[in-house]
């Protein structure tokens, strides 16, 4: 079983962050691996462990800081780490990013075939959830997205996905792109031995040239959308906090009535 997991370096949601020229400004100590990608790493490790053989590749695309995301995946137990980094990638939209990831996936796949690419259900900073679909389309592999359950047998993957109106079971032949939700599993904690090993582990660094991707096909220039403005939402004004000493419910009711909400 050979599985590639995509991981994203995202800002720590609890910390402050900002936009400059339409892209997110991050600092090295700000953030690490997108939390929801822990479920993707876990799903891959569990499949390899159950199969008793195989390898997990962790792949990230991003600037120099993004290497923190694959290091985190190594700490969790991934066997190999790849960091795709190239100034020309900055400002890519989801389709540009999918192109880059697809090229890296193909490079690994050409060395020895992969069975699966597993991603998280969304990146907690942007949350569009579009990348897994765009990647499956770009690779022309099976698309099995938003899996809360995943099984692989006889060259086929089967997922359960939980949509607001129905629980679906969908299956498709390998290779497949699978995105897993935070309900798919409980991610493990890194152990000390792996943390030490991850520090020294080698991370392959690939540029667009290494991937044979034309720089003009990605990046801000190729993006179909542009962020034209970004601003922090102003804090709510006139906030009230009271302590209930026997009249709290009445005060709440009066507030709602006065606001025309009750």
């Amino acid at each position, binding site marked *: 079983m050979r599985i590639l997991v995509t991981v994203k370096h995202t800002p720590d949601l609890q910390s402050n962050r900002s936009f400059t020229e339409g892209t997110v400004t991050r600092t090295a100590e700000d953030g690490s691996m997108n939390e929801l990608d822990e479920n993707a790493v876990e799903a891959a490790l569990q499949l390899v462990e159950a199969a008793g053989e195989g390898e997990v590749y962790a792949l990230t695309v991003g600037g120099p800081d993004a290497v923190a995301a694959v290091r985190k995946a190594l700490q969790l137990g991934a066997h190999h780490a790849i960091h795709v980094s190239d100034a020309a990638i900055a400002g890519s939209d989801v389709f540009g990013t999918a192109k880059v990831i697809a090229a890296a996936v193909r490079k690994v796949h050409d060395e020895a075939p992969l069975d699966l690419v597993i991603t998280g259900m969304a990146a907690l900073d942007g949350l569009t959830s579009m990348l897994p679909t765009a990647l499956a389309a770009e690779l022309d592999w099976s698309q099995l997205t938003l899996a809360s359950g995943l099984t692989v047998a006889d060259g086929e993957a089967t997922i359960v996905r939980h949509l607001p109106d*129905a629980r679906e079971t969908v299956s498709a032949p390998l290779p497949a792109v699978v995105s897993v939700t935070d309900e798919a599993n409980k991610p493990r904690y890194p152990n000390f031995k792996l943390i030490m090993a991850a520090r020294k582990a080698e991370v392959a660094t690939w540029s667009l040239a290494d991937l044979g991707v034309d720089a003009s096909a990605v990046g801000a220039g190729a993006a179909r959308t542009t962020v034209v403005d970004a601003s922090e939402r102003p804090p709510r004004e006139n906030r009230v906090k009271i302590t209930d000493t026997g009249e709290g419910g009445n005060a709440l009711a009066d507030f709602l009535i006065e606001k025309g909400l009750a």
Partner: protein
Amino acid sequence: MSVAVLIEHREGHVSRPSLEALTLARTLGEPVAVWLGDAPTADAVAQLGEYGATEVRVAAVGADARLPAKAAAAVAAATEDATVVVVISTFANKEIVTRLAVLTGAGVVVDAAGAELVEGKVETTQTVFAATWNVRTRIDAERAIVGVRPNTTQASPAASPVEPNVVDIAVELPETRETVVSVEPIPQADGVALDEAPVVVSGGRGTGGDYSLIQDFAELLGGAVGASRDATDEGWISHEHMVGQTGTTVTPALYVACGISGAVHHRGGMQASGTIVAINMDPDAPIFEISDFGVVGSLFDVIPQAIERIAAHRAG
């Protein structure tokens, strides 16, 4: 400019967010409605016309269209002439529009709170980073796809209703590698759907598993019942009620958080709500940082008293 709106419907009824989307579409151009599935009833067609749809394009696809690649092919066939396609920003639609954009080269923004035309281009607004930032995005591509969140546009009928033409769209669905093995429908809770509700009353770990007060309060306020992840994990209430970044994102006019601490994952799914009310025993709970009205106290004391006062007020 022709603006196509993908209509959400259940048991023949048009969803309220679809009417909001048609309302928004009227500000961008001339709306046409796209309907996947069995043909709409005359009532549904009339309602779409009331909200400005000049045409209802029906692609009679079956359950197969649950696969995003197939649904996207159907939408593509029905929107060949559209410069803008508007959908409701659900998980399923985000996958469909991604496939659609791959087919048509369109630029996409999902989770939008609004859209307008600026110098001939569509610009959208949305919130990011757990709803702490506002972002404005311009769609540069020739064709634009906008996924809008429910409750972000006030649905209103067109100044003069139109009688839409109903047009059948022939689609040949592409072969896909995926097969839908089974579909188990989830029975809908009575009342309003969570993401469409104008009021959401949510309970978390602080309820201790007893949702009766939450339900009573929601019913009184005409809202839906929400929950935190801890509550759904405990099995106190089903997954469909979970509000948050990995659950349902809600933007009601009023959000009432009861016994919910306000973890960033939860806040990201409700922070853009109109008015936020919190009831929590812990004066330092983070939910108070974003609430317009906070009561430090037990929900078991505060809710019954509030219900009584509101009921008395209504009784006059």
